[in-house]
């Protein structure tokens, strides 16, 4: 009798302990699996960067050796100097920086004024006009290549900064993102400013723009990276080596080194192209992700 009672009392206890142990075991094994898969993902995503960096520092004998070594036996920084001189990278840099910054500034500025106008200024058929702006996002650059090339030739803009700066300076994406943001700004603020006799230009520059500074920074970042990475447009509108931007300059370096297996120089060149973007990204990650995700959020 007594023992039966004791058994009845301890049995659930035993089960609970077992269950907890099983639960913990499942918890740990699931966690281990999670970290394992995520670790593999990180390795795959990061491998190209690792291989690029180590190859850029290898002496040529270690580049062509089979099987390849994971790490260079000595760090050969001279590869960067050699790569820099193997193609006119100084020109590529100037071209990329000047045209990238200029078209980004214009893109954000034009978008700022346009988005403000669409949100705060009365005008007939505004919605139809806005659709006309958004429609440009659906039209791929690719299908405008032939007519744009002819037009730029007519304007004598081929191989000029104008061609690299002006046509990309109008973009619907920043207009869309700023438009979304401006619609959420308190109306009273505008009304108060209008009563004070401020013009739209004043309200835009003194009230709306300062309030939206973080978003403007985010939009500018996304625009700049887009310009920096662009390949097709500069390929069409320039044909002199001295007018090329970095991504095409890299392809040029590849052509000049073809057959030589000078992968250490090519990887050094690759680092020239992506280093500024990666540095920018690391320091401005928050605004950056904000800028990209903003366009994604349904309004």
């Amino acid at each position: 009798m007594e023992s039966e009672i004791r058994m009845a009392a301890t049995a659930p206890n035993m089960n609970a302990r077992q269950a907890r142990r099983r639960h913990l075991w499942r918890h740990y094994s699931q966690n281990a699996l999670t970290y394992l898969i995520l670790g593999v993902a990180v390795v795959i995503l990061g491998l190209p960067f690792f291989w690029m960096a180590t190859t850029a520092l290898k002496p040529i004998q270690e580049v062509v050796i089979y099987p390849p070594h994971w790490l260079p036996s000595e760090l050969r920084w001279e590869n960067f100097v050699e790569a820099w001189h193997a193609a006119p990278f100084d020109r590529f840099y100037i071209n990329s920086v000047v045209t990238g910054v200029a078209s980004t500034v214009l893109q954000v500025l034009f978008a700022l004024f346009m988005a403000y106008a669409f949100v705060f200024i009365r005008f007939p058929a505004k919605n139809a006009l806005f659709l006309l702006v958004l429609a440009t996002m659906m039209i791929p650059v690719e299908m405008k290549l032939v007519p744009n090339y002819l037009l730029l030739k007519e304007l004598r803009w081929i191989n000029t900064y104008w061609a690299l700066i002006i046509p990309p300076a109008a973009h619907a994406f920043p207009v869309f993102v700023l438009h979304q943001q401006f619609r959420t700004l308190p109306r009273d603020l505008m009304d108060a400013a209008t009563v004070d006799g401020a013009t739209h230009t004043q309200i835009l520059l003194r009230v709306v723009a300062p309030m939206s500074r973080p978003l403007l920074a985010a939009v500018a970042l996304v625009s700049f990276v887009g310009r920096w990475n662009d390949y097709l447009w500069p390929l069409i509108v320039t044909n002199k080596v001295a007018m090329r931007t970095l991504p095409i300059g890299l392809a040029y370096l590849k052509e000049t080194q073809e057959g030589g297996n000078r992968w250490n120089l090519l990887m050094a060149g690759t680092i020239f192209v992506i280093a500024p973007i990666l540095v920018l990204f690391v320091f401005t990650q928050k605004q950056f992700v904000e800028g990209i995700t903003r366009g994604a959020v349904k309004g």
Partner: protein
Amino acid sequence: MSQLRTLGRSWRRNRRDWLTFLAFVAPNFLIFAVFTYWPILYSFYLSFTRWNFLTPNMKFVGLRNYTRLLQDEYFWEVLGNTFTYTFSVVLIAQGLAFLLALLLNRRVRGQPFFRTVSFTPHITTTAAAALVWVLILDPNLGPLSHIYNALGVQGVRWLASSTLALWAIIIVGIWKEIGFSSVFFLAGLQNINKDLYEAAQVDGASAWHLFRHITVPMMTPVMFFLMVSGLIQAMKAFDVVAVMTEGGPVYPSSATYVYHLYQLAFRNFRAGYASAFAMFFFVAIIVITLFQLRVSEKWVQYGE
């Protein structure tokens, strides 16, 4: 008439506002007009001509470019390649990204680190990434040779095979998008109201049930957004082809639609035919977008 009169009256009343509006939108509209709206019309016109960019007069050929398009083997092949590329990249990248996001959502450590790592491929210049991948996939010089060695198999010569070259490009496409998409998926997962899960758990729902009936429906807007942007992005693949394969090893085994368009226009100087090629692409993008919008009404569930 009366409409015109009202318009005239409100013009006098609102002249200042209207002029400001016009001034504010002028820079963008001017550029759009010259470099977007006009080129589309001109492209449409060019697609009915035969022209080599040089001779002073274009020859009007009616629909000949379009009928030739349908008989062009290259057209069908690059269309097929683009189709394979686009759907493989979008479906595989999104599938894997969703899986990664589910894992990350298990309150693991190092989420910020993972976010940085996964965004990096996305912002990396495609031309640069493509060049690195040429080396990664090299059977002798790349890190994969260690795997081939360990397995005791012959190294795979991705870029020298007319079937695998396209897949090499697809791999780079997936590599670029997977982390980016997973960050979006993770944000979506973290936005799901936890009460939903708790309520269902009280009712004794299984983990699979929770996933199927709460997670998936709540995630459809994110999935939809990533699908639309991913498809349209992938359809335009150009840089990666130009750097990795140039459409080879036997043209056009790995050429995408836009790459072939570029070849037609700027290598073969067939302005008219290339324009017909471009018009087809334009129509395809519009049809896909409209189709996706229609479909989304059916299966995307928006809501808080």
